């Protein structure tokens, strides 16, 4: 891009709830300010004016869930200098990836849609990185608005944004919250989940349910799972804790698989 031209930004969605792009619309005043620094040239949810690519920065929400989307994401990648994927669906397949572990997709479609041949859907809900290289992943269900705006401003300054990878537990201690596991005996995924939410759930008196996905050092998921069983959860109930919003992320998937195997034996 030429130095005086504003970066051309596009926003697309795949299978998702729209909540992550809504974080951009919810940025309100910041959005109007950003509009002075960037050109949002394609954002179907916000504007009926849609320009074709290429784009300098593309934000994509949602998981790849249909045959058309497999093609669409490759095309988006080809037309984007920087590809940022936003949210649990884009980064780990999202809650709709709960179908992945069941092996029952076809049965779901056939059994539950009155006319299954009208429905085109992939067996798995895929994170975008299954198909194309991505430049930056912002996790969260939804993503944190501050992280999103911070990432966009970094890019405007020509720097790749740095995203915290530490667990919720660290943030929770830093804020001085009472530990919900210790005080309430409530299962909490804080030790293995990436922060970004500001330790939201423990701050609201409940256990973390993992919506920002695994933290970088989440290899103690097994030990945490055993702790949940000690707290009174069934093995199946414990597996479900991992198999949730970001359950298809490898670290959580493996923990859930192991627990389910255990439950089956």
């Amino acid at each position, binding site marked *: 891009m030429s130095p005086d031209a504003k970066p051309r930004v596009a926003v697309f969605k795949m299978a998702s*709830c729209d*909540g992550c792009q*809504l974080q951009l619309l919810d940025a309100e005043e910041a959005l*109007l300010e950003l509009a002075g620094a960037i050109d949002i040239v394609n954002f179907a949810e916000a504007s*009926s004016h*849609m320009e074709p690519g290429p784009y300098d920065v593309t934000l994509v929400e949602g998981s790849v869930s249909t045959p058309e989307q497999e093609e669409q994401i490759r095309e988006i990648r080809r037309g984007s200098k920087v590809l940022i994927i936003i949210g649990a669906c884009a980064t780990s397949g999202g809650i709709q990836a*709960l179908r992945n572990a069941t092996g029952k997709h076809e049965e779901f479609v056939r059994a539950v849609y009155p*006319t299954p041949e009208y429905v085109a859907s992939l067996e798995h809900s895929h994170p975008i990185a299954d198909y194309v290289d991505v430049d930056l992943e912002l996790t969260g269900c*939804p993503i944190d608005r501050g992280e999103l705006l911070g990432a966009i401003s970094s890019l405007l300054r020509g720097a790749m944004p740095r995203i915290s990878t530490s667990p919720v537990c660290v943030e929770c201690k830093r804020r001085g919250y009472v530990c919900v596991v210790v005080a309430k005996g409530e299962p909490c995924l804080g030790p293995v989940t990436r922060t970004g939410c500001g330790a939201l759930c423990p701050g609201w008196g409940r256990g973390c349910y993992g919506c920002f996905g695994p933290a970088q050092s989440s290899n103690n998921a097994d030990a945490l799972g055993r702790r949940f069983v000690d707290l009174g959860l069934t093995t199946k109930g414990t597996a479900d804790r991992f198999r949730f919003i970001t359950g298809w992320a490898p670290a959580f998937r493996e923990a859930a698989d192991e627990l389910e195997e255990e439950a089956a034996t």
Partner: protein
Amino acid sequence: MTHRSVEVPVIARVEGEGALHIRVEDHTITDLRLEIYEPPRFFEAFLRGRHFSEVPDIVPRICGICPVAYQMSAVHGLERLFGVQVPEGTHELRRLLYCGEWIESHVLHVFLLAAPDFLALPNAIEMAKTHPELVKTALEIKRVGNDLMAVIGGREIHPVSPRVGGFSKAPRRKDLEALLPRLEWALEQMPGIGDFAASLPSPALPRPAELVSMVNEDEYPLNVGGMGSTGGRRFDATTYEEVTREVHVEHSNALHSVMADTGTPYFTGPLARVNLNAQLLTPVARAVAERTGLRVSESDPFFSMAARLAETTLAIEESIRLIRDYVAPDPSAVEVTPRAGRASWTTEAPRGTLYHRYDVAGDGTILEAKIVPPTSQNLRHMEEDLRIFLPDVLDRPDEELTRLCEMVVRNYDPCISCATHFLRLDIERA
């Protein structure tokens, strides 16, 4: 014979993804399809086997714009099945949270999604250039709604505090009171915003319609009430699936709802609520309704924007009242013991009635779930609107025709992500 096709491959400024195909031959519409290509996400399928306590964290993921609606239909239904007595003040706090969602969703729709149409502008950023003060005011009102949700729910998109039995934590009175000056300011702005809406040149779509919403004798219905229609029907959540019926059509990943007995479409949302609950409008909301020319018994979908503004005003007035009277529920939640049976409930999402039904096992495991979102209930009605509206405007240039068609669809503030996740769950088990 002349042919003309109108293709709107991506309907802009709606939540989720849809397209519109129209074929015209000799001034007659020979094909009209509102295509919903948002992929199915199978919520009802993976709800099966989950513990009831997880439902308030699962169902909001259907929609980032109306997560509270999903949480509320779920927690009320499950609490009724389990015979839970929630702590005093819970009803009021839930209503307050829901008011936050109505404010945020309605203002988002009116100003960021719908109003640019009436000014023939592509988006709110352009509108911010032609109407800077108005857009700034609207965004500030929307922000109050968002902040109200965040103070009660922890965050406005997918709040974390609502649970079966109450809230994981109740907000402090002083945190809610801190919002009062902004809510009072917002209320003062609403009559002027009503005047702005009344000044917009609007198409008209007079048509007979059966409008459906919750009804309540004591308070404008959000969380609690029976069902009513302008056709004189009275029913409730327990008979919802007998009174209405869903139809699967080829071009849509969303099912269409019709009345079971007549097979006719119906229309849910703000205009229906105002129609059926006009006597419960709060004073300033009533004044705003009058200034926008909104009459009770109005069924022209183009009056939806006026109804949304009246309801935004009502939600602000109710928020002020609820915060002034707020006493934090203590404890914030009660323990819940599940029991087997069927949980059915409706609440009023910003875009219309949201029906949930859960069949639950004795240990609290969800056996079956059914969710009927407002947009799917309105889809058939939207297609019918287009068939009625189009013949008079068919000679307009493509660009204008496209805009007009989108306006007809946008009257319903469709939430396509909501409408698409759902499935019929009458599973035949081998």
